């Protein structure tokens, strides 16, 4: 009989513990990639949120990029959606149209906390469908030694398209390298870089109301400039995306390239600096702003908690900690960002361009949009179609996507 009391007590403890576990509501949280992007920061803030919200347990699942978005949408279509999901913001319009995600209500103060037009990447039909988590802009990397060898001032990167074309020409003609790396294969990069050029000349793809505004003199001028400068690019531009251009720049064979901030530490053997995109006659320095976001799926029963978690993780200080840990362009315009530039000047064009940058076009059929614009760029650079005609055709096709 002396054993009975401890056994009963242990059983009671186990029962109460299991009852407590049974009360915990699980929240499935999918994140694309792996935890190398400041996963420790995310884990720390998730644990903090859990302690503030007893009864909810967050199960973080990292999914490789290749399957990540597909997994979230498949789970949602099967009625087993994750509570919260990290997705490329380009997928938000389609998910919103399908009624699979819920919009966020942000106060004016919360909106003001985002740098420049960042929220434009997650706004569709007047509503915000995700809170931005990872952010990047594009800028120019240029080889200072090649600038010097070509008789150019390496402290004066090209500001305008005219200077840009002249610099590319000078490098091609006076060195063994090509003036500029132009991406024009069938990946995402060619659209991003070309549209950044359109933005830099005051043009756009979609206007503020979501109407197609691609067929403009600004876009045609950008295409004409792209065609002209392609003479001084690596031969066979239609075979090159970022993956092929970066090794050429690293090998000192390209004078200028355009890419994201993640390459800043990738060129140990190149004496390089970064600069903003050169601007056209009708525009100012711009860039192509891309975000990944947290989206809250509908029908999970924990939508409110998922929204709360998303906002908690992306609150200014937590977000800055994440950005610095992951080496991303800071999303929030708060104290501490300027230190980044002070410590590393190559951050400057990526951060300073944000207020005048243009968002990744928000359209449900993003892959279709990419195909259309890349097709237009390839057509012009392969000499199959004139710039004005290519832009007009592309605009009609984009209209057809909507």
């Amino acid at each position, binding site marked *: 009989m002396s054993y009975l009391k401890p056994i009963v007590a242990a059983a009671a403890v186990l029962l109460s513990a299991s009852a407590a576990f049974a009360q915990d509501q699980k929240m499935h949280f999918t994140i694309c990639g792996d935890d190398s992007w400041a996963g420790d920061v995310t884990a720390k803030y998730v644990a903090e949120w859990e302690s503030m919200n007893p009864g909810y347990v967050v199960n973080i699942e990292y999914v490789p990029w290749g399957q990540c978005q*597909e997994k979230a*949408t498949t789970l949602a*279509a099967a009625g087993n959606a994750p509570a919260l999901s990290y997705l490329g913001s380009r997928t938000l319009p*389609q*998910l919103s*149209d*399908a*009624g*699979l995600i819920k919009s966020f209500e942000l106060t004016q103060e919360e909106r003001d906390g985002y740098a420049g037009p960042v929220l434009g990447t997650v706004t569709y039909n007047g509503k915000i469908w995700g809170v931005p988590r990872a952010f990047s802009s594009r800028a120019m990397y240029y080889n200072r030694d090649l600038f010097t060898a070509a008789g150019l001032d390496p402290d004066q990167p090209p500001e305008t398209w005219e200077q840009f074309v002249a610099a590319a020409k000078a490098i091609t003609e006076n060195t063994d390298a090509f003036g500029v790396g132009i991406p*024009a*294969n*069938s*990946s995402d990069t060619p659209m991003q870089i070309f549209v950044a050029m359109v933005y830099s000349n005051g043009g756009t793809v979609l206007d503020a109301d979501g109407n197609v505004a691609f067929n403009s003199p600004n876009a045609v001028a950008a295409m004409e400039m792209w065609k002209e400068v392609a003479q001084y690019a*690596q*031969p*066979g*531009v*239609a*075979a*090159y995306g970022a993956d*092929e251009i970066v*090794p*050429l720049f690293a090998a000192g*064979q390209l004078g200028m390239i355009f890419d994201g901030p993640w390459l800043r530490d990738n060129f140990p053997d190149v004496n390089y600096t970064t600069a903003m995109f050169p601007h056209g006659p009708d525009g100012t320095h711009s860039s192509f702003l891309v975000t990944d976001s947290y989206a809250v799926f509908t029908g999970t029963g924990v939508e409110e908690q998922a929204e709360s978690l998303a906002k908690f993780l992306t609150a200014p200080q937590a977000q800055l900690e994440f950005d610095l840990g992951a080496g991303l362009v800071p999303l929030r315009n708060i104290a501490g960002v300027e230190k980044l530039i002070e410590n590393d000047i190559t951050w400057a064009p990526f951060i300073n361009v944000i207020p005048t940058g243009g968002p990744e076009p928000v359209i449900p*059929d993003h*892959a*279709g949009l990419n*195909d259309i614009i*890349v*097709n237009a760029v*390839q*057509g012009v650079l*392969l000499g*199959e179609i004139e710039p004005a005609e290519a832009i007009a055709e592309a605009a009609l096709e984009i209209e057809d996507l909507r």
Partner: protein
Amino acid sequence: MSETNQKTDYFPYLLLVPALFITLLIVAWPLAETVRLSFTDASLNPNEEYIGFANYERILSRRFPEVIGRTFLWMSLSVALKLTIGLMGALLLNAAVPGRTLFRILTMPPWIIPIAIGMFIWGWMYNGQFGMISGLMQRIGLADGPLEFLAAKDTAFLATVISDVWIGVPMVAVYLLAAMQSVSTDMYEAAWVDGASRWYRIRRITIPLITPSIVTIGILSAIWTFNSFDAIWILTQGGPRSGTTTMIIDTYKVAIDRFRYGEGAARAVLIVLIMLSFSLAYYMVLRKLSKSGATK
């Protein structure tokens, strides 16, 4: 008929039920679902609607007929090259020539190397700045500058065909080698005694006797090549300017990249119909060969 006999009669059919069930589950049901989807506007939106033949009208009135033509050209070129090179390879593997073992070893890499890795290697080989092919051609004076094989529509088309041929040749060669080895050596010895040259023996004995095998592997190869995806997707993603977009690439882009499941399903149904015609041809050839005893 006794009760026992009746039970015996049903028993074999009963044994087929599990296999039939699995076949229905993994083949018939997805196929039927694809056909159903092709008549809907299915997308990520759970509320799909039936739209009749609208998807078929839409795809056939656009660039898709061009894509169908390109697919047949791509497949024909690839299969022709696979058969030609495969036949030559089989002859080398079958001949008592020095280095036969080496030839047999050389047949293996396209099988051993995963297709994705093989295509990445081909991608770099086609690169004008770093690639081996362009570098070699410049060194021996065949080109006076870098050649970018994937940068223009026609060269990209040929480059993807060549890479696909690299994947498919070993299968054809081994299949034809097996056929050659089934030809009686007495016939070659008799021809040799009569003074027939090696080329004459190939032309008059080997080729006629393995023709049924050539036809069979030709049709099978056409079926596999028609749906060849990896080579094109990794090398060009269907570009430049859709120059390498075949039916399977186009279907993938529409259904998976753009989430237009209904439109993608209509494309898939067209592919199934074409594949059915190939399968029918294959079945008829097999039947004819079976009747003539050529497969024995």
